[in-house]
């Protein structure tokens, strides 16, 4: 069953005195209940904007976002539509996303209240994310980054979400804590039957937890597929470059392959395929026409 469906979403950022930036330029994506979808791409490719739009934090310019049959509307000052409270987000930086002046138990209780849950306590939620029950009386500054992110996850899960969104939830953490926290998010989301949209630029972690991977480049999803298939046989040249750039800790001393050039300015994207100026196998057609098909948006993999 489709839990979330994003259809041809366009999100634009308007800043007075600056050109219009189309951060998400026509992206489509679905997340099913109990499924983990990993969204990867370089910084500035629009993956966070997409996540924020799904939460209603950024308004969609065109395109639709549907959650459990309800259209997602931008958040305003008024109370959020009850039907949309099933979307919860874990943010990138747990040093900024937790309120430093409130006890963590009280912050988790906010989530429980949102779900109308009177039987579960904050301590129970802490236990679920692998922290001692008595931590509820402490303040965020008493915890390490990994512990804080666990608390943020507990707070999001307390609201009983059916869709959990992680916007780079592990990039601010120590290498030793990253895989643990990512696994924890997956286990908790899947065991409660919720879907998880996991955004990260770290492909090795996404590979570990995602059922499907979507690769984003300059506002568009260029390849989407089952994790194992994408990893074994990446078809889009951009996916290949991304995977090839990860250095392996094998002690062999092999320098990772370099992808020349920088991500182009999203305010002024190149014509045709957006990846063609950096693509090692660009053809004439790539410079002229945009490959607007799925699952691999590349002229080399045009569907018959």
């Amino acid at each position, binding site marked *: 069953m489709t839990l979330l469906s994003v259809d041809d979403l366009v999100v634009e950022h308007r800043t007075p005195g600056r050109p219009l930036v189309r951060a998400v330029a026509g992206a489509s994506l679905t997340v099913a209940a109990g499924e983990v979808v990993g969204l990867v791409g*370089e*910084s500035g490719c629009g993956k966070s904007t997409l996540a924020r739009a799904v939460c209603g934090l950024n308004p969609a310019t065109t395109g639709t976002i549907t959650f459990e049959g309800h259209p997602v509307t931008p958040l305003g000052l008024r109370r959020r539509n009850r039907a949309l409270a099933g979307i919860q987000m874990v943010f990138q930086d747990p040093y900024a996303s937790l309120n430093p002046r409130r006890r963590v138990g009280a912050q988790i209780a906010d989530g429980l209240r949102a779900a109308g849950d009177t039987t579960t306590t904050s301590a129970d939620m802490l236990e679920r994310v692998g922290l001692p029950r008595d931590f509820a009386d402490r303040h965020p500054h008493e915890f390490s980054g990994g512990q804080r992110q666990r608390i943020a996850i507990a707070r999001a899960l307390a609201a009983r979400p059916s869709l959990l969104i992680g916007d780079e939830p592990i990039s601010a953490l*120590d*290498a*030793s804590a*990253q*895989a*643990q926290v*990512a*696994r924890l998010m997956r286990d908790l989301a899947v065991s409660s039957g919720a879907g998880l949209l996991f955004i990260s*630029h*770290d*492909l*090795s*972690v996404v*590979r*570990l937890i995602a059922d499907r991977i979507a690769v984003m480049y300059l506002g568009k999803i260029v390849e989407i597929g089952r994790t194992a298939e994408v990893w074994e046989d990446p078809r889009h040249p951009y996916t290949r*470059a*991304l995977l090839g*750039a*990860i*250095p*392996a*800790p*094998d*002690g*062999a*001393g*092999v*320098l*990772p*392959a*370099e*992808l*020349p050039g*920088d*991500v182009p300015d999203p305010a002024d994207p190149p014509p045709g395929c957006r990846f063609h100026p950096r693509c090692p196998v660009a053809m004439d057609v790539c410079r002229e026409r945009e490959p607007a098909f799925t699952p691999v948006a590349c002229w080399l993999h045009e569907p018959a």
Partner: protein
Amino acid sequence: MTLAISDLKVSVGGREILRGVDLDLRAGRVHGLAGESGSGKTMTGLAVLGLLPHGARASGRILLGERDLLTLPAKDLNAVRGGEVAMVFQDPATSLHPMLSVGRQLTEHMRHHLGLDKKQARARAVDLLGQVRIPGPEAAIDRYPHQFSGGMRQRIAIAIALACSPKVLIADEPTTALDVTVQAGILRLLRGLCDDLGLAVLLVTHDLGVMSAVADEVSVMKDGLVVETGPRGTVLRDPSHPYTRALLDSLPGETP
């Protein structure tokens, strides 16, 4: 041996941060320093430059050639810092001055350490920008840090570090703030510069993949001590210390 650290101990406010660190850096070799945050990796790098936090007490020896950097008078240390020993920091967005042009930041220490005049310094700055592969160095020199992407900024920071032809380069998590594709370029650049210029590089990183790609020797730190040192292949493939093994096991990669 270009730089030899022996039995380095540092305590800040009565708390021991480093408890006897031994490291040897050689010209033309990249020495990787791994470990989780709080293990004292960065503090080791800062100690070499005499940039320890206020009130820190250091003992042991840091030998650069014949001189011990820990006992060097402030004036002599100033001549070493930025001249013979240079550093690249983690986040190029904060390590570069936002209000000074790239050229100004590249030439200031050159004129001080090398005694170049304005024209010579500028010419050398353009050369350096070319060396770290900044496109259009002639034009880039008059631009400001915010006009460059993260990867380009880190290249500029490396150019600044290299400006006075140092013997030792300390790179503290130089690619942590960057994307993998950009990281690949910076790692290639660092490796190339190390080989071409015969630099002794101390690469501080928590990413064992990065370590495996560029380091010749690897040291692993834990709680202010070096627990294992050895050639890259040995430490990463056949670690002898349980902590190194635990670090390697915590990496994602193998499907559970």
